[in-house]
């Protein structure tokens, strides 16, 4: 068994631990060995905590012996390096935070620790979560485990690649415009961005506060459900945390999808979608129909305005959030500043990479005197229209389905010179962030040997439904079981 322990899903690891077939220490040591063997090629994991992970694994084994094990006890995982952790540095993929030792844990980190999960390391990401290819990381880009010449997607590219390469069964991730779902699609795994407010943002380094949401990437919907349950719930320390009851997501997975109505937005299947991706998604839809779901064509008439509105709202909020990095309180400080202004400007100019600087500048411009109404207010009005489109759709459908991305993973370097073509990766994903709705991506086929993802969007706080649809799909298909040849 021990040679292929890493191919087990999170749920299977839990069963093996319960049955006494394996110890947490064995699982964690195996995960650490996997990282050592496969990470040099992929650069998915930035830092490993051997000592801390082994100690936590031993503690998990001890609590299991004492009869105190939960569903996640003793299972190895990685945190996206945007979550503050007292152990290991928290870099956010930036030179700005290269040496930042967070003085506290993010709520998500505390909750998963309490659930007994074992952090083995921190995952690579686009700098400050800005990017769709993981090529904006100060610590180097990440290879897609299906073909390392290709990008894993972003910004949670390290988390997705680490799971696809089976270094860990699951990882935390965050999603501001598609940063969980797009890399999950590119890497052939499952990822869920819950409803805005479901998972605490405390200790999760802020990019765009009205859009950012933490979530999970894992091999299956079942694994996502198990981990999301432990991460979710009200947190006093996040002023936008939702005080809404958290259902046991895993318990609802076997809910039948017979009679469920799935809405297919015509705008998701038109211009911009690569034909072969559309074919894979259509085959997935047929599968869901065979399981008893009804499909219905719907319209999200303002879909074409999602990307324009997003690229006002997100940079505006980013320019405000990232003003805290001033070279004074924490983070990078330039050498020998001649005065305070020089300190600010050089510390920020040196600490931030080109995409972060572009977005700060766009945000600063659109919020500057005289431009606010034309840009930020206009974008917020369009955001309302986009959200209303979903409200209207959900009057007649239970979930909305479409491709996660317009095309599969692209080659490294292919889009780095053209920010706007990079932005179009998020064509189908940003609307869920603008509306605050839960979205999930799951594998549904391959194009030229690279995975294709299918996206489900649900009503607010109805993660149970999209997880159940995905689980039922995964009971009937085996796309989620496919692994890269190197695994």
């Amino acid at each position, binding site marked *: 068994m021990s040679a292929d322990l890493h191919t087990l899903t999170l749920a299977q690891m839990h069963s093996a631990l319960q049955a006494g077939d394996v110890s947490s220490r064995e699982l964690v040591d195996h995960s650490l060995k996997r990282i050592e063997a496969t990470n040099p090629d992929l650069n998915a994991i930035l830092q490993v905590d051997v000592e801390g992970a082994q100690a936590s694994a031993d503690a998990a084994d001890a609590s299991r012996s004492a009869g105190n094990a939960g569903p996640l006890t003793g299972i190895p995982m990685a945190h996206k390096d945007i979550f503050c952790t007292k152990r290991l540095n928290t870099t956010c993929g930036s030179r700005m935070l290269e040496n930042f030792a967070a003085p506290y844990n993010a709520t998500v980190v505390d909750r998963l620790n309490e659930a007994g999960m074992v952090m083995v390391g921190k995952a690579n990401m686009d700098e400050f979560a800005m990017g769709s290819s993981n090529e904006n990381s100060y610590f180097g880009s990440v290879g897609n485990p299906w073909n390392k010449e290709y990008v894993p997607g972003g910004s949670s590219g390290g988390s997705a690649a680490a799971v696809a390469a089976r270094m860990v069964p699951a990882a935390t991730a965050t999603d501001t415009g598609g940063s969980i779902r797009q890399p999950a699609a590119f890497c052939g795994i499952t990822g869920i961005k819950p409803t805005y407010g479901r998972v605490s943002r405390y200790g999760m380094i802020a990019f765009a506060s009205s859009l950012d949401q933490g979530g999970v990437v894992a091999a299956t919907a079942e694994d996502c459900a198990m981990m999301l349950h432990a991460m979710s719930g009200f947190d006093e320390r996040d002023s936008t945390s939702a005080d809404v009851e958290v259902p046991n997501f895993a318990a609802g997975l076997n809910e039948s999808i017979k009679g469920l109505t799935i809405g297919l937005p015509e705008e998701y299947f038109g211009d911009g979608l690569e034909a072969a991706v559309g074919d894979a998604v259509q085959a997935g839809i047929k599968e869901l129909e065979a399981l008893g779901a009804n499909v219905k064509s719907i319209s999200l008439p303002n879909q074409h305005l999602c990307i324009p509105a997003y690229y006002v709202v997100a940079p505006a909020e980013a320019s405000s959030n990232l003003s805290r990095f001033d070279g004074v309180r924490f983070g990078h400080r330039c050498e020998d*500043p001649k005065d305070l202004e020089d300190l600010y*400007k050089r510390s920020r*100019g040196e600490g931030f990479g080109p995409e972060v600087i572009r977005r700060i*500048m766009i945000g*600063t411009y659109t919020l500057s005197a005289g431009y606010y109404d034309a840009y930020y207010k206009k974008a917020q*009005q369009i955001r309302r229209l986009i959200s209303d489109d979903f409200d209207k759709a959900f009057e007649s459908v239970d979930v909305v389905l479409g491709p996660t991305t317009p095309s599969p993973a692209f080659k490294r370097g292919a889009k780095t010179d053209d920010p706007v073509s990079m932005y179009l990766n998020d064509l189908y994903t940003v609307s869920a962030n603008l509306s605050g709705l839960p979205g999930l991506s799951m594998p549904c086929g391959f194009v030229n040997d690279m995975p294709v993802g299918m996206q489900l969007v649900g009503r*607010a706080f109805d993660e149970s439904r999209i997880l159940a649809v995905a689980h039922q799909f995964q009971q009937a298909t085996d796309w989620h079981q496919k692994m890269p040849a190197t695994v």
Partner: protein
Amino acid sequence: MALTPEEVRSIAHLARVGVDDATLTELATDLTTVLELVEQMNSVDTTGVEPMAHPGAAQLRLRADKVSEENQRESLQAPAPSAEAGYFLVPRVIE
């Protein structure tokens, strides 16, 4: 609208981001491309549409006005590039 390198210089100043002269032109081109993308918003009339700042109808909560955190000055200042006796140190501001 096309941004000039001079406008980019002033935006960079507002953002307190040091940008060298050589990259001003390149940034002007990049930012102009992004602004052209976002200007597609003007294709729809939004007169009378209530701006949406936040998802859902969530109201921001106020916490009770009572002490909720212990003093953590030392640990919170530990990551500072330069701190002494509880203060953050910066270059002299008043001559």
